[in-house]
């Protein structure tokens, strides 16, 4: 009975986490664009992105912890950190481990942004774009419900949303400030005083 509960909670927390990660990624892209939503100011979107991301970490910890306690999963502490060494479906389980490691790196550097600087934070934050698809593949091919119709439909919808957001991210004019600033209008430095300046 206890084991069944663990298994069920492990599955459910994994699915919830995938939803949270998707929302966090979409929110992150929206935040980076610098645009508010109707009725939701930028700072609220930024806060929501941070909070959803933290919640995703919480659910990921629950997901991993419950499956560690579940004898059917045959998960070891090592599998949590070291990918592709698991007993069952080592490759698909390993992708989960990779996603876990990447998320830890992304969230830790976000929390430490002040200490490590914006450049390092930004560099690591790009890993999100690797973390999300790896997490999706892990849930589809390692998850119990991965091939259920409802899950497949949900995954397709989430993938479409993220792909659309990435396309927007790569498009010209993605940043709100781009339209305000335009290209730099500075030309090569020139001295105005060629005529006036006769000292030298």
């Amino acid at each position, binding site marked *: 009975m206890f084991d069944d509960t663990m298994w069920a909670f492990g599955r459910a927390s994994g699915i919830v986490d995938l939803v949270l990660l998707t929302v966090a990624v979409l929110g992150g892209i929206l935040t980076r664009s610098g645009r508010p939503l109707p009725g939701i100011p930028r700072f609220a979107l930024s806060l929501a992105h941070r909070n959803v991301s933290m919640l995703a970490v919480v659910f990921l910890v629950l997901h991993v912890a419950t499956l560690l306690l579940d004898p059917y999963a045959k998960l070891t502490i090592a599998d949590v950190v070291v990918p592709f060494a698991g007993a069952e479906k080592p490759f698909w389980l390993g992708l989960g481990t990779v996603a876990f490691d990447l998320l830890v790196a992304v969230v830790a550097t976000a929390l430490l942004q002040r200490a490590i600087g914006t450049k390092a934070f930004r560099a690591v934050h790009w890993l999100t774009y690797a973390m999300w698809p790896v997490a999706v593949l892990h849930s589809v091919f390692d998850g119990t419900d991965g091939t259920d119709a409802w899950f497949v439909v949900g995954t397709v919808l989430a993938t479409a949303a993220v792909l659309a957001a990435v396309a927007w991210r790569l498009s010209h004019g993605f940043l709100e400030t781009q339209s305000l600033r335009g290209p*730099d209008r500075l030309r090569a430095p020139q001295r*105005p*005083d060629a005529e*006036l300046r006769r*000292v030298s």
Partner: protein
Amino acid sequence: MTVEAMVEPESGAIGVDRLLAAGPDARWAQHATRFGALDAAAAAPTLLAELEASGLGGRGGAGFAAWRKLAATLEAGRRPGARPVVIANGSEGEPLSHKDATLLRHAPHLVIDGLLAAAAAVGASDAYLYAAEPGLEAVRAAAAERADAARIRFVAAPDAFIAGQATAVVNAIENGVALPRDHTRRLSESGLRGRPTLLHNVETLAQLALVARYGAAWFRAVGTADDPGTRLVTIAGDVALPQVLEVAGGTRIAEVLRAAGADTSRLAAVLVGGYHGAWLPADALDAPLSPAGLAPFGAHPGAGVLLALDRTRCGVEATAGIVSYLAAQSARQCGPCRFGLPALAETWNRLAYASHDSGLAARAWELTDTVDGRGACAHPDGTARMVRSAQRVFADDLRLHAHGGCARAAR
């Protein structure tokens, strides 16, 4: 930035030989004969008091009382473990100014004396001299002539307008990047690598070397009560003999210009203090070249630059050219400067050459207000000051330009 064209400072009504008293290209022999050696350690205990009594103002541009920075560095240097630093700033980024280059070439030993005296007074273990070539080489050669200058480290300044901004100097010495940086504390509290840092212009230090030798009363014997001593002035533009002159404090601007061969009756305006300075109308040239004398015009001697503008030139065009140059000299680190100065330059160029649009003047005012006070260094503020003075002094010209005319005299 050659100093070949420098006319030897003459004694007389205008020329006062203090800083340049050892003669042109003074080596150690001439320096020692004229001034004698300065015992920095012996002068140290009384230097702060003498400096305060002398009323010496900074000669780098901002013009703060020289003793205040020294006192602040001394105070910060009392923190446990604090190791103060002294920096001589001779990076004359201002293309109109040649007085620092002149000083470094002709009186390098006086600058070294001042640097060492300041270092002794604040207990600094490290002393730096930051300047562009060829001035840097001149001081380096002078330092090689004496035993007490071995610990001075020389750092080359790039030929860029903002390379002399205080935080850019510190950044250049610390990281090799001569760009201004953000700061919330004064350099005297936290400068080079967080150490208490005394940063003075090279002329300020040369003047300090004289105060250390001869005292405050001697210093005040020349100049006026509110502008004691002498200052080096670069006279450029529409004058017969562009040159660097040492003049007594409080000398009238017209007199200084005439000493450089200017026909002051032919001038439309004079830019005082360089590109970050302020335009003075032709009818104000009787004002003394002192902080108090120039205050009513929103101007300041700054680094001692006078740019004369002949009546046959257009002040709007001259200002547009200067704003374009200043915009191009932005380090492009700070958004309001990076985007605001080019927009301001574009507006002034249209005012000067293109449109008969009455909205342009309002746009110029608005952009000036927008950039002012919004950068890590004083570049946007200085630009705003110069532009505001142009708007006052060339108000009639601007009105004529708005209708396609120009106020410049035919001949």
